[in-house]
């Protein structure tokens, strides 16, 4: 009987259809099953590909089989009523792991005691402000402001503990804000903008205060609030200062660590490479002496004249590429075919790109066994690309031991530190292609226009 009304469901065992009551429950079960079967059937994960901020909406959409746009619009609408959606979003960001990541940001953040302290400090600071504002204002700040204490705390933890690729994405989001603070005429414009905004806010605030609380009687509770705030500041102030100081110290330590990594990469490129060469050519004393002398000169000029090894006196990017060709051909005796398209002046980032390209070329010369290495460099308006290719042995990129410094530190580390990217294509027996890409910064693009001196 019921089978005839639902011919499309033959999979159900017949006893489900015995009486009316069961039929009902099975329909509910079917609905629940349909609900369960929507989406991708995987546990809820943030989607690192489909994201505007943290990929939470994209993740939920994929999980439940909705369109991401719907989820996002829904979220914004909810955020407009009461403001709790924003902190919820950040909490989700913190607690839901990204796809392919084994742990959520939150679980990492637990071990970041400094980050937790900073989050609490910022939260308490904001609380003080909200107390002040709440005393003066009506309920708007109450409804929208308080949830943001949690937002700020969560965001701090996310910011400090997100994996590298997510941090890059976040940096991308805040870039427009940062660009207010960089070089030259931009900085002046940014400062002017900030001052104007501050003046407007101050004037508006004072005006509002005077109109809303014109009578002294209304200002009286304010005095009480001020006392409370002063108490909190007295209580927490020193701790806030300590957190801030720790932060500065930590930043300095990080800068030192980066400097150290740079130095290690440079030593690897020069001294370690030369030592390896010397071992290989131990049978030829003249060669060894020559190599040692060249290395000594290079090291001296780095230590005492401040010119880093591998750092060329090249004036332009194409010039630098040709220098790599000359050096590698002279040192390793492997011909290097260079094709350059376009040219531009050098800056720090392009200098790093050249160093990475040099390392890739040297690696190819040393390990690939290829008879010729091809280096292709193209300067495009928005990026500079270098492809180093050989038809040699090739290798399995997944099987490079972690301690092999060349690819990991000299190329990958160097490129990512300067905002570039590396792609390695290689297969055993088919040769290797290392593609290095470095975006051109606004400053470099400016300098490339005629009429500006380079650097």
């Amino acid at each position, binding site marked *: 009987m019921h089978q005839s009304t639902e011919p499309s469901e033959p999979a159900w065992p017949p006893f489900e259809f015995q009486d009316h009551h069961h039929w009902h429950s099975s329909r509910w079960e079917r609905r629940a099953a349909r609900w369960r079967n929507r989406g991708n059937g995987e546990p809820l994960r943030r989607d690192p590909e489909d994201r505007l901020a943290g990929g939470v909406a994209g993740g939920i959409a994929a999980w439940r089989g909705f369109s991401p746009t719907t989820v996002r619009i829904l979220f914004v609408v909810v955020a407009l009523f009461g403001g709790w959606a924003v902190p919820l979003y950040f909490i989700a960001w913190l607690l839901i792991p990204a796809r392919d990541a084994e742990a959520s940001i939150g679980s990492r953040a637990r071990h970041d005691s400094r980050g937790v302290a900073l989050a609490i400090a910022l939260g308490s600071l904001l609380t003080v402000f909200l107390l002040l504002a709440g005393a003066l204002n009506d309920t708007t700040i109450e409804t929208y402001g308080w949830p943001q204490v949690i937002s700020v705390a969560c965001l701090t933890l996310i910011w400090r503990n997100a994996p590298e690729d997510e941090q890059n994405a976040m940096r991308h989001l805040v870039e427009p804000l940062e660009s207010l603070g960089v070089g030259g005429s931009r900085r002046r414009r940014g400062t002017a903008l900030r001052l104007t905004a501050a003046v407007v806010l101050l004037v508006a605030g004072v005006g509002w205060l005077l109109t809303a609380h014109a009578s002294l009687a209304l200002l009286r509770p304010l005095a009480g609030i001020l006392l409370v705030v002063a108490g909190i500041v007295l209580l927490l102030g020193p701790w806030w200062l300590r957190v801030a100081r720790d932060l500065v110290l930590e930043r300095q330590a990080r800068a030192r660590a980066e400097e150290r990594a740079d130095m290690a990469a440079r030593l690897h490129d020069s001294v370690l490479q030369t030592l390896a060469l010397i071992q290989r050519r131990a049978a030829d004393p003249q060669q060894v002496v020559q190599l040692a002398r060249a290395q000594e000169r290079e090291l001296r000029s780095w230590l005492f004249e401040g010119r880093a090894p591998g750092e060329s006196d090249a004036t332009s990017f194409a010039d630098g590429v040709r220098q790599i060709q000359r050096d590698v051909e002279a040192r390793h005796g492997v011909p290097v075919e260079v*094709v350059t*398209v376009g040219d531009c002046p050098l800056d720090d980032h392009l200098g790093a790109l050249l160093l990475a390209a040099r390392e890739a070329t040297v690696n190819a010369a040393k390990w690939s066994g290829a008879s010729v290495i*091809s280096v292709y460099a193209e300067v495009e308006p928005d990026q500079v690309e270098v492809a180093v290719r050989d038809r040699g042995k090739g290798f399995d990129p997944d099987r490079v031991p972690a301690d092999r410094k060349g690819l990991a530190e000299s190329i990958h580390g160097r490129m990512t530190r300067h905002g570039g990217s590396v792609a390695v294509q290689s297969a055993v027996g088919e040769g290797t292609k290392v593609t290095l890409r470095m975006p051109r910064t606004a400053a470099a693009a400016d300098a490339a226009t005629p009429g500006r001196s380079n650097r």
Partner: protein
Amino acid sequence: MTEPPRVVLVDDHGLFRSGVRAELGQQVTVVGEADDVEPAIELIERVLPDVVLLDVHLPGGGGQAVITAVKKEHPEVRFLALSASDAPEDVIAVIRAGARGYVTKTISTADLADAILRVAGGDAVFSHRLAGFVLDAFAAAPSPADVKPSFDPELDQLTSREREVLRLIAQGYTYKETARELFISVKTVESHVSSVLHKLQLSSRHQLTRWAAERRLT
């Protein structure tokens, strides 16, 4: 290919000529040699070879002088330019004069034979270096003053596919590898390269001339 193409060698180095002749022996028939512009023109017009292997640099004027003179009477003769020095302006000049391709003297014998066969068959031959030059020359956006409204504007731009093909060739990919990388057939790669050659020869772009002139200065 039923019979090997008939080839004339034009190069001012006797050693190089005899070397190429010895190495290419089986794959092509070398029907004559010349060491300068005048004798080369005379020889080519007499024997009418399928392909002329032409050095870009000749004492009595560049290789393009030979091409221009021969093309007037015998447009069917095909030229493959060859040079050691790789000065881009010379190479571009020879190509614009009508050469069907350009290879460096460091090319392997097998590749050279392959290039000659290709040119004999009417295809274009781009070495990685020529591909780089062409990308470089077409890279800068044309300034409005450079574009003649009466002329076909398509000639002044490379399509993005042509650009991709050239990029790979500039990285030392063979036509076959390029085809595999871009998921297209070797025939398609050949037609892209031919079309680039066509643009290079017919483009009215002043940019190309100016680019070459700038190169000469540096």
